[in-house]
């Protein structure tokens, strides 16, 4: 380092100090270092405990190396199999060797994976493994046929071959009710096996209905809040936000007590003679709509109210003074100004609704479950993580698509929402 880099306090003739352009200022280097030191721990924590698990989970939608792990030699031997003729003895020997040597857990995973694509494969593979382990010298294609005669079925070998790749489109296709046909083309699964498109559409429809209901309810509420006196505004806001603070579980139990067949609403209606037998209000779609609107309404009211507050009263007055009719004033003067708030509120409501789980579970019926339910189901009960991941990927894709659309929506002036 040159002398110029260290200012010499005792040198009173330091007038000739060169112009050290690159000398670090008092706020230069160390400050950035401190900044990184503050952000980094949290950043690492989030990357390891939040981003990485989700990325890994989503990767299970296409990454499925179970067969490759359990049966590596077979996968290698089948690489140049021509698909139409029965497999050679070399392939069969590789499979026999793999089955003998495979770890039990790995083999079970591979068997489960193969069974998704062809039912019965799991039992056949495990049975064959037992057989070849018992008879020491078994070799060749015939030995497999002895263990399980269905090895003669070439479709089974084709499944084995395609599942041998570490990457698969199987789960994603399944999540969209599609399948790969034997000829390699992609087509819809037969109607009796189709399940997920209905669920996806149901999720979207339910969220749309809830969003629209919230929008209609939020409008008068936001308008009333925004045009109230400051003191009353605070009170109204507090009341709107009160349910926010009350556990979802508490609210769900309230709806059950109120809406069930012998609940308060039905009892009251019966006593008043309006109905003669209980109406089903819960554990069906009605219940889910009521519950979700109750949960999500504040998310809609907040941004719209903020947007409305930002609109000077004079604008609408000016429109009226210039002779505009009420609808014209509303649509041409008022709505364009609160549009950012409406867009933000609708997006927020829709996005939160799409991913909802607990409320439909507690106060919906079987036909009202959304994507989340099936993700949970395939994780916990059916233990098909690949499919759970593929469904999660679909959910994430829907959300990202919506946020992307929102980013494209033109926003006039400054965003008033969220302030």
């Amino acid at each position, binding site marked *: 380092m040159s002398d110029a880099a260290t200012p010499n306090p005792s040198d009173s003739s330091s007038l000739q100090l060169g112009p050290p352009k690159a000398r670090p200022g008092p706020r230069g280097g160390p400050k950035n270092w401190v900044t990184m030191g503050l952000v980094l721990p949290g950043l690492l*924590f989030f990357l390891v*405990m939040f981003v990485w698990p989700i990325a890994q*989970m989503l990767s299970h939608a296409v990454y499925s190396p179970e067969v490759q792990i359990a049966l590596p030699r077979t996968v290698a031997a089948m690489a140049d199999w021509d698909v139409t003729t029965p497999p050679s003895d070399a392939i069969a020997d590789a499979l026999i060797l793999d089955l003998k040597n495979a770890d039990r857990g790995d083999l079970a995973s591979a068997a489960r994976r193969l069974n998704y694509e062809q039912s019965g494969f799991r039992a056949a593979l495990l049975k064959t493994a037992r057989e070849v382990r018992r008879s020491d010298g078994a070799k060749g294609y015939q030995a497999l046929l002895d263990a399980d005669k269905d090895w003669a079925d070439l479709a089974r070998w084709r499944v084995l071959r395609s599942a041998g790749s570490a990457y698969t489109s199987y789960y994603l296709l399944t999540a969209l009710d599609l399948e790969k046909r034997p000829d390699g083309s992609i087509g819809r699964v037969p109607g009796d096996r189709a399940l997920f498109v209905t669920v996806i559409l149901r999720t979207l429809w339910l969220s749309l209905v809830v969003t629209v209901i919230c929008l209609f309810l939020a409008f*008068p509420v936001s308008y009333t809040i925004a045009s109230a006196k400051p003191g009353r505004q605070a009170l109204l806001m507090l009341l709107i936000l009160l349910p926010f603070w009350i556990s979802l579980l508490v609210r769900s139990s309230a709806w059950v007590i109120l809406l069930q067949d012998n609940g308060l609403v039905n009892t009251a209606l019966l006593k008043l003679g309006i109905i003669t037998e209980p109406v089903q209000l819960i554990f069906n779609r009605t219940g889910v709509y009521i519950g979700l609107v109750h949960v999500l309404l504040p998310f809609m009211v907040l941004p719209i109210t903020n947007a409305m507050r930002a609109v000077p009263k004079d604008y609408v007055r000016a429109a009226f003074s210039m002779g505009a009719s009420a609808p014209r004033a509303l649509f041409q003067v008022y709505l364009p100004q609160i549009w950012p708030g409406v867009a933000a509120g609708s997006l927020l409501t829709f996005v939160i609704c799409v991913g909802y789980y607990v409320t439909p579970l507690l106060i919906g019926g079987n036909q009202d479950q959304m994507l989340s339910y099936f993700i949970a189901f395939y*994780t916990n009960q059916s233990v098909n993580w690949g499919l759970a991941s593929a469904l999660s990927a679909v959910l994430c894709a829907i959300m990202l698509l919506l946020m992307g659309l929102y980013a494209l929506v033109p926003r006039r002036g400054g965003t008033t929402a969220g302030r």
Partner: protein
Amino acid sequence: MKYKQVNPMQKWQRLSGLLTLLVLIFLILPIVIIMPLSLSSGSFLSYPMPGFSMRWYEELLTNYKWTKALQNSAIIGISSAVLAMVIGLMAAIGINAMKKGAARAVVMGLFIAPLMTPLIIMAVSLFLFYSKLGLSGKMLGIIIAHAILGTPFVVVSVFAGLQKFDMTLMRAAKSLGASSWYAYRNVMFPILKPAVVSGLLFAFVTSFDEIIIVLFLAGPDHITLPIRLFEGIRDELTPVVISAAMVMVLISVGSMGLIEWVRRRSEAAKEA
């Protein structure tokens, strides 16, 4: 009366006022209506109640199943909120000091992301991740997950506080001879305290109410209050469930009141 002025908006204002009232009834009445049932002396959740008693609260506070759940919820809620506060406070100060640009936006987006992530996706991914890590069925796993959920509240709240914070105060402190740390500790932190406290309480309430992650990650010893309520609603809806719900309402609304109080006090100090 011939010249009675007609405000073209009045009609709409009345209508929207009426609708607002109905919406408020819809939002609040269900919660209010079930509250008294926790004081019922009977075993059924219906009106009219046979009589008043504290028996369900007694059961709540003596039955191990409920006391353990309350204890678990408290431990998880407090630990995760404190963890979220430490991470969020540091992150917010760091982000605020970063240069505006893509890097800052990405980092901010990452810290906000848990707010927009469906809980089921977090729950499932951590479920798979923890099974490899050996964190499944451990309370630490739940605390970490809840800390991630709570961090965005702290980051948003403290960041907003920092945006309002006048950086000349830090310059002033330094010109008066304060070291960086002395200035942080005696100038910036005290002024940011209300923002930190409200972020902390938000994080606590979020953890206290959270169920999906606990549902996936908890071992049998870590049943929390929301899980007990969940089971109660699904299996046997008795007044003890409502009294537990009342305790949750009390704690949540208490926290909200506290946040409001902290906010008002800090505003009053500024304006007085």
